[in-house]
């Protein structure tokens, strides 16, 4: 069983601050981490390997620094780590990212592909299903439980919905996207972390996956970001009452509910 896990290095969204004066995103000093949803993906791959055997390859597209995210995957226990890095890949939107990853995965070989349900920076939830479509396989998104059946080469998974879940069966090859409900990712020991740093992160460039300049990166992208800005949210600065006169505080709350036509 060949499992491929797609991972991304992202800025720690909780550490991002907005400069009060310039209203721009302060990225300096914001640590880069392995996308939290990808940790669930890696963990699930490890559990599947523990049960059914096979190999796990973690693959990421990004700048050279994204090696750090792959070291974390190696420390968690994946067999192989591949970084797709090339100036040709720069500026990719979801389509170009999915295309690049799909071309690489084609080269790497696969039975099962696992992605995080979204990256916490771009937040699109698109790359996984797009890779599945490009590789001509079914996908099960927002997965909260997985069962692999080796004999029938099939996957049975619970897919999260707004009100519960759907139980879905698909035959492999197949792609899954992982939610937080799937597992609790292991935390690699210091020893494993040090051992991982000595392992090799393989580098693949556009030529290695047979990608033409115009189909990947910015030229291959169908969406263009023409402007970015920091939004102003209409919250905060409200009246905060204490419990000194609780009936009065609650009455004020009721007035507010009335004003908003909620009651």
């Amino acid at each position, binding site marked *: 069983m060949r499992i491929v896990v797609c991972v991304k290095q992202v800025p720690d*969204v*909780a550490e991002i601050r907005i400069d009060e004066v310039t209203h721009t995103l302060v990225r300096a000093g914001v640590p880069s981490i392995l996308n939290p949803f990808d940790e669930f993906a890696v963990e699930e791959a490890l559990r599947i390997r523990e049960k059914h055997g096979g190999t796990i390859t973690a693959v990421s597209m990004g700048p050279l620094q994204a090696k750090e995210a792959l070291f974390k995957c190696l420390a968690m226990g994946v067999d192989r780590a591949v970084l797709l890095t090339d100036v040709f890949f720069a500026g990719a939107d979801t*389509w170009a990212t999915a295309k690049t990853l799909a071309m690489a995965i084609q080269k790497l070989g696969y039975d099962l592909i696992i992605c995080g349900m979204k990256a916490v920076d771009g937040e699109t939830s698109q790359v996984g299903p797009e890779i599945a*479509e490009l590789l001509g396989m079914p996908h099960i998104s927002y997965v909260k439980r997985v069962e692999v059946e080796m004999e029938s080469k099939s996957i049975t998974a619970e897919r999260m919905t*707004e*009100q519960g879940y759907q139980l879905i069966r698909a*035959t492999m090859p197949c792609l899954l996207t992982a939610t*937080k409900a799937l597992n609790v990712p292991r935390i690699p020991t210091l020893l494993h972390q040090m051992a991982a740093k000595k392992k090799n992160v393989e580098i693949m460039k556009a030529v290695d996956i047979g990608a033409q300049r115009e189909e990947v990166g910015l030229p291959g992208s*169908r969406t263009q970001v023409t402007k970015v800005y920091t939004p102003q949210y209409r919250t905060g600065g409200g009246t905060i009452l204490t419990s000194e006169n609780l009936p009065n505080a609650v009455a004020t*709350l009721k007035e507010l509910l009335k004003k908003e036509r909620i009651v």
Partner: protein
Amino acid sequence: MMVDENSTGIWVIGEEKEGKLAPVTLELLTIGRQLADSLRQELVVVIIGHQLEHMSRLLVDYGPDKILLVAGEETRYFIPETYSEVLSALVEQRKPFAILFPATYDGRDVAARLAAKLGVGLAADCTDLKIDEAGRFVQVRPAFGGNLMAVIHQPTARPQLATLRPRMVKPNKSGRKVSPSVEYIKPRISAKPFTKSLLRTVREVAEESGNLDEAEVVIGVGRGIGSSENMRIVNHLATLLKAAIGGSRGVVDAGWLPHTQQIGLTGRVISPKMYMALGISGAVQHLVGVRTAKEIIAINKDPEAPIFKVATFGIVADMFSVIPLLAKELEPPAPQTT
């Protein structure tokens, strides 16, 4: 890549479940009507499913020029591989200018597969869609946990795809007098079907927990609730407020609410009119899920809790004192006994 300048029409892909139309469909039609009017193009709504005869009645008031009902055994259940296949055949044939989907679990799945199949762009989880002075379709979407907004164009491919978050616009009856044409289409699945099947659909969320995407009022429960038994008093308040119940990661991890109800970075992003946080500290990872709420009400016994920094109204108090008082205020007066 060549842009087909003749592509025309704004399409809205509706969401139908168990015979019911998801409210986000009407929101999409409302915004779709504005786009279509600005461009002087037609507005088409597409519903894919099984038995859809009653659908057009629910859609007419919201201004579509055309209603396409794709109904058949093949599309009885939501399978994104099949739905995108059906849509791709329609798109190749009729060449729309833009297609809008709801940013729901299902909507995102079909939109992504369709975009990849057609090789076109897709702007995900948009909060606003408009046409600029040059007649270009503009998509606005948040990124980095809502810290940043990106303005997006798709100059190189048609159709241009976007998913829109629920509750971004109020559904608005168009007031148009022309009645739309209704067309029934049999789904055609040409490519080899995927070996994938839906075995069962399970509802985990209690009826009274409501749909987090749709509810005007959402009650967010934090670890301050202390135990799953205490959820009962929140359920009662939710009934009085017609609120949906969600919660923090702490509450979900404790098993007091199902995973679907987690709000925040690793849960759901919601936009209710009012978010009422009970016993929630207000960690950044939680707050990114409620940034677009109009009002945030905080009840927490710790005056230093960060939730108060984003609250539009707050009470520093024990929630177990506040909830019964509030419930009493909201309960209909008991009938007089003589």
